[in-house]
Each structure stands twice: as structure tokens, then as C-alpha cells.
């Protein structure tokens, strides 16, 4: 008869795992040559990589930076590497880079987009790294240094040199002393951009800003009696009335006293990456809040708001972006009252923003769906009202889930800015490249401009992608 009673008399201490299994040979045997089919695949892969490199490497290595035309490039390559050698002609980038960057912005005013680009990163720093003050300082410091370097290279008047250098140094000082105060730069950035890039009197931008002040004051006054939604609506109406009827005359009046004028610049002088960044950055930053509101609207209990949200999202998602761009360039002109001079870039920004907002709304809705019902119930049970619950409980969690999708949308949107070429704006990929290639000196050049433009786009998009990964790691608090 067997005895099933058993008592452990001592608990086992934890022990080391079996001997470390490392070594290059072992790794290769496991990962590259683990069987016949794997070995064949490995060899084919190596052959393919070799073939590709043997095509591309000489072309890259024979690159010529100093030449004044494509034929000169070719003769230099032939001279150095033999008559049949291939080689890249980077000289075109060296000589025409400014068109890829600034489009047709006049050279003596290049400092304006450059300063604006530097301020963009100063404005982004506190928003991107709100709880990492060291990163804010590093970012602003690097931007300030690069801007000063750019100032030296650009030929500007001494006055502009001194004023902007002092400005950027002051911002760096602020970032050292009180980094979060830079959030004011972030809030003012849209108006700074309009003033710097399009020029004109500073008062036009300031009165545009004042419209938001009107909104805030009206909201503050009516919020208690009317509730959040109605108060916001009334505020928006007041702001729009301000912009239509009062902003112009007031700005004109102030400008006649003291103008602070920058030379006005037409939208058709914009091009290249300047254009891509103007459209991309504004659409990205406006489309996220609109997308969140649309996602909430789609889940609303109120029939009207829900139907409008669904209608908007489904309509915009169902229409190709190019159609929207044509709408921007042609149809809006018919609908708007005659003689309204509604800037083409502004129109494109509005429609690209709508387009991105509809996509973001669906991604945010996915984030909302990932949330357990219990989170809403706990927020309700604690007495938080709808907007508090959304802001403090629901959105922080839903947006965290939605980060990869949102950033994918942003990246897609940024690359889609090249489509504005179809409405006559000169994007870097098609518009500017075509301009460069139509130059007699560079007729026949093909790969180099595209590789350059592609490389810059890649840097921008890869940056966004890395930031989203950083954000996901930072926000990972659920320890699942």
C-alpha cells in the first residue's frame, strides 16, 4: 500500500539558470542555418543584398558636389572613374537647396522663415516634454545655437541679426530659469507664424489673437449660467463677430499710429519645405483637438450632435484628399462672397485639417472603445461632471491607446502635403523638383532631388515616430 502523505522539510532557494547560451556560432546556427530551407533563404538574402549594394554603392561613392551643370558632373565622373562609371550629382542640391527649402521666398527675407522654424521648436519643447525640463533646455539650447549659426550664414542686416539673436538668447535664458513659461511661446506661435511668414502689420496678427481673448472673456462671463457647451458657442460667435467687424478697423487704426510692419509676402512665393511645414504643422496641431471632439460627438447621447459628427466623419473619410484640395482651390471661391481674398494656403490648411480630423476622430474612438466601462462609472460615482471625466480620466487613457494610430495619421498627413502640387502650390517633391529639373543646366537629372526630398521627409517622420515611442514608454503605467 502506497503512502501519499508528503511534507517538504526545507524550501528550495532560487538557483541560477543553466549555463549562458551565447556565442556567435551558436547564434548563427540557430538564426541563419537552422535547417536546409533556412540556409537557402539566408544565402539568397545575402546574394540579393550584395547585388543591390553593388549597384548603388559606386553611384553613391562617386558622388560629385562641385559642378555647375549635369554635363560637367558627368565629365568629372568619367574623368575620375572611367567612361562607364555611374555617379550621383549632388551639386544640384548644393546649388539649389534654397528652392527646396524656401520656394520663391526672396533671399533677403530668408531669416523670417528661419526664425519661425527655430521658434517652432521652442514652442514645441514645453508641449512635448512637459515633465522633462532637462529635455526642454537641451532642445531650446540646440535650436538657439543652430539659429545663430544660420544667422551667420544668411546675409541679414545688422539690426535683424542683433534683434533676433537677442530674442533667441532670451528664450534660451527663459528655458534655463523657468522652462514651463515657454508655453506662452507655444500659445502665441500661430500668430507669430502669420506675422513672420506673411508679414504686414503686427496688429493684424494681434487682433486675430484678441479674438480668442474675446472668446475667453465671453465664456468666463456666461459659463455659470449657460453651461460649457452653450457658453463656448456664444464665445465663438462673439469672436467671429469681432474678427469680421472690429478686428480690421482696430488693427488699421493702431497700425496708423505705430506699424511694426514686415514686408508683406504673397502665398504664391511659398514653396518647398516651408510650404510643407506650414501646412503640415498647422493641420496636425489643429486636427487633433477637432478629432477628439468629433470622436466624443460620435458617442454623444444627443441625436443632433451624433448625426452631425457621424455625417462629417463618414463624408470626409469617403472623399479623396485631392478632391478636397480642388474644392479648396476652386469651389470655395464660388461659395464665398465675391472680392473676399481668402488665401489659398489658408484654404488648403482648413480642408487638410478637416481631412485629418476625421481620421483622428476614428483613431480616438478606437482608444475610447479600449476603455473599460468601469472607468466611466468610477468617474461618475465620484461626482465628476462630463468634461472633467473626459479631461482627467477618459482622454488621458484613450489617447495613450491611440498614440500609434494618431502618429500614423500625422505622418501620413505630413507626407500628403506634397499633394498640394495639384492645386498649383509648389511642394518640395513634385513642384520644386520640376522647377529645378526644367533648368537647362540640370536637364536629365533624376534621382538626386528625389533622394534629397525623400531624406528630409524621412527625418521629419522618423522624428515623429521616435517621439511617439518615447511617449508610449513614458505613459506606460498600467503594468499589464
Amino acid at each position, binding site marked *: 500500500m502506497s503512502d501519499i502523505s508528503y511534507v517538504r522539510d526545507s524550501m528550495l532557494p532560487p538557483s541560477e539558470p543553466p549555463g549562458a547560451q551565447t556565442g556567435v556560432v551558436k547564434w548563427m546556427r540557430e538564426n541563419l542555418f537552422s535547417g536546409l530551407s533556412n540556409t537557402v533563404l539566408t544565402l539568397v538574402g545575402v546574394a540579393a543584398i550584395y547585388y543591390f549594394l553593388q549597384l548603388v554603392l559606386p553611384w553613391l561613392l562617386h558622388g560629385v558636389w562641385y559642378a555647375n551643370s549635369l554635363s560637367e558632373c558627368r565629365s568629372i565622373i568619367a574623368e575620375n572613374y572611367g567612361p562607364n562609371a555611374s555617379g550621383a550629382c549632388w551639386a544640384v542640391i548644393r546649388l539649389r537647396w534654397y528652392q527646396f527649402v524656401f520656394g520663391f521666398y526672396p533671399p533677403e527675407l530668408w531669416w523670417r522663415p528661419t526664425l519661425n522654424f527655430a521658434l517652432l521648436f521652442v514652442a514645441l519643447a514645453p508641449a512635448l516634454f512637459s515633465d522633462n525640463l532637462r529635455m526642454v533646455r537641451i532642445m531650446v539650447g540646440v535650436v538657439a545655437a543652430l539659429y545663430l549659426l544660420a544667422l551667420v550664414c544668411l546675409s541679414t542686416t545688422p539690426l535683424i541679426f542683433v534683434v533676433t539673436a537677442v530674442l533667441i538668447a532670451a528664450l534660451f535664458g527663459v528655458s534655463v530659469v523657468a522652462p514651463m513659461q515657454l508655453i506662452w511661446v507655444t500659445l502665441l506661435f500661430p500668430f507669430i507664424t502669420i506675422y513672420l511668414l506673411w508679414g504686414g502689420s503686427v496688429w493684424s496678427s494681434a487682433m486675430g489673437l484678441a479674438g480668442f481673448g474675446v472668446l475667453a472673456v465671453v465664456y468666463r462671463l456666461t459659463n455659470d449660467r449657460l453651461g460649457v457647451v452653450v457658453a463656448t458657442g456664444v464665445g465663438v460667435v462673439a469672436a467671429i463677430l469681432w474678427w469680421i467687424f472690429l478686428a480690421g478697423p482696430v488693427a488699421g487704426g493702431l497700425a496708423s499710429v505705430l506699424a511694426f510692419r514686415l514686408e508683406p509676402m504673397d502665398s504664391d512665393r511659398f514653396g518647398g519645405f516651408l510650404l510643407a511645414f506650414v501646412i503640415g504643422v498647422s493641420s496636425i496641431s489643429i486636427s487633433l483637438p477637432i478629432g477628439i471632439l468629433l470622436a466624443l460627438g460620435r458617442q454623444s447621447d444627443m441625436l443632433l450632435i451624433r448625426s452631425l459628427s457621424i455625417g462629417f466623419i463618414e463624408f470626409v473619410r469617403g472623399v479623396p484628399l485631392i478632391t478636397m484640395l480642388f474644392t479648396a482651390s476652386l469651389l470655395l471661391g464660388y461659395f464665398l462672397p465675391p472680392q473676399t481674398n481668402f488665401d489659398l494656403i489658408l484654404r488648403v490648411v482648413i480642408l487638410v485639417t478637416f481631412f485629418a480630423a476625421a481620421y483622428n476622430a476614428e483613431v480616438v474612438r478606437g482608444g475610447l472603445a479600449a476603455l473599460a466601462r468601469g*472607468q466611466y*462609472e468610477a468617474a461618475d*460615482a465620484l461626482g465628476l461632471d462630463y468634461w472633467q471625466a473626459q479631461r482627467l480620466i477618459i482622454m488621458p487613457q484613450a489617447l495613450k491607446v491611440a498614440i500609434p494610430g494618431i502618429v500614423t495619421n500625422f505622418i501620413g498627413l505630413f507626407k500628403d502635403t506634397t499633394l498640394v502640387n495639384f492645386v498649383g502650390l509648389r511642394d518640395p517633391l513634385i513642384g520644386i523638383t520640376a522647377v529645378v529639373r526644367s533648368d537647362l543646366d540640370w536637364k536629365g537629372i533624376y534621382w538626386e532631388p528625389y533622394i534629397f526630398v525623400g531624406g528630409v521627409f524621412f527625418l521629419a517622420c522618423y522624428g515623429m515616430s521616435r517621439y511617439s515611442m518615447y511617449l508610449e514608454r513614458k505613459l506606460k503605467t498600467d503594468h499589464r
Partner: protein
Amino acid sequence: MATAENNMAVSDEVAVQITGMNKWYGTFHVLRDVNMTVQRGERIVICGPSGSGKSTLIRCINRLEEHQQGQIIVDGTELTSDLKNIDKVRSEVGMVFQHFNLFPHLTILENLTLAPIWVRKIPKKEAEETAMYFLGKVKIPEQAHKYPGMLSGGQQQRVAIARSLCMKPRIMLFDEPTSALDPEMIKEVLDTMIELAQEGMTMLCVTHEMGFAQAVANRVIFMDQGQIVEQNEPKEFFNNPKSDRTKLFLSQILGH
């Protein structure tokens, strides 16, 4: 389990008054003609088979569920579709859920101070002091800066209780607070609840912990098919159940 003295004062003041309340999910009649009065300081345990509507009943008390007929008056405020009244009731009534429902993106301390800061408009520092006091009461002050996901189930549920207490509620609702916990952790949560009962908190508790019911409840309510079938003092209820349905239920949960 520690036996609490059952001499805690029950005042004449009414905390919750439910009259002729009915509720439907679509066409399904979940709660049928529920009448119930809860005095201030009373500790009520609600039990019954699953699907009997006991959770739905206490979720109606802070309007996580809407009732279609009858009247619910909580602390002198009638629950209607008026949002102001609902928010008022919710800030006076604490609720503890089966699955804790802590906010995973906030630290324990932030979980506790969120509602006092945003709903009661209490200064952050004061809210944090209150939060640390209640964390001490549920015996986990050292976890204040961790995230909910790093705590055990029992600890999370105690945090959830502390989170409700930080709002200084006058009534506490417990919706099966121990049924998602491992056996070893049930006791720590029940001990916290017993302590709360001894301090005179008005409590409505949906639970199958009959030991808890015997220790602290003034009244046990048995529900089946959306109706109150029997209610009595715990001793009478367990030793001398009147209805056959109650007898069957008790024999099933106490049977082994």
C-alpha cells in the same frame, strides 16, 4: 472574523427612501416594485442569486442606472434627470466596485485627491493630507506613490475604499467588493469595511460574505427576480428564514 458590537446608533433620520421603484432593461423587468427605507447609520447587506437585480438596485441609488418608475430620494434629494441633483447625490454617496475601477494612469495619491480637488474644490495640499490620513486608515500609506497596477487586488480594493472616503461621503455603497479577490485578500478588505461600520457609516453592501453580514449588518435583504423577497435581522434571517426561496438560497451558499 472580528465580531463588531452591534450597538451602533441608528438614527431616525432617513438616508435613502425608495418607493414603488421599477426598472426595465429594454423589455426585461429587472427591478419590480422595490420599496425600501434606509436610516442614517444603518448597515444593510443585500444578497441573492446572480441576476436577482441586487447590483442594479444599489447602482440606482447613485444613478449609475436610471429607474423608470417610482421615487428614489437620497439624503433629501430626489433623483430625476436633473444633472445638478445627480452630481449632488454622487458627491455625497461613495461607491466601491467589484473590479475596483481605480484610474490606472494616476498614482494612488492622485486617485485619492482627484475628486476632492476637482469636485469639492479643496486645495491640493489639504486634499493630499486627507488622502494620506485615509490611506493610513486602510493601512497602506507606503503605497501612495505607486500606480494601481503595482498593487495586489486586496490593496487595490482598500485604495478604492479610501478613494470614496476622501470625498467624505454620508452613504457608502459596496457592489460585491470581495468577489474578485483571492481568498487570502478578502479578510483585509472586510476588516476595513467592519472598521468603517463601527464608525457609524451608513452602508449598503451587496455581498455573499455571510460572516460579514452576521458581524455588522442591522438588516439583511434577500432579493430574487428583481424583488425583495425577505428582510430581517441577521440572526433571524440566517437561523429562521421564512420563505422557501430564502431557505434554498441559504442552503446552497452555506451548504458545504
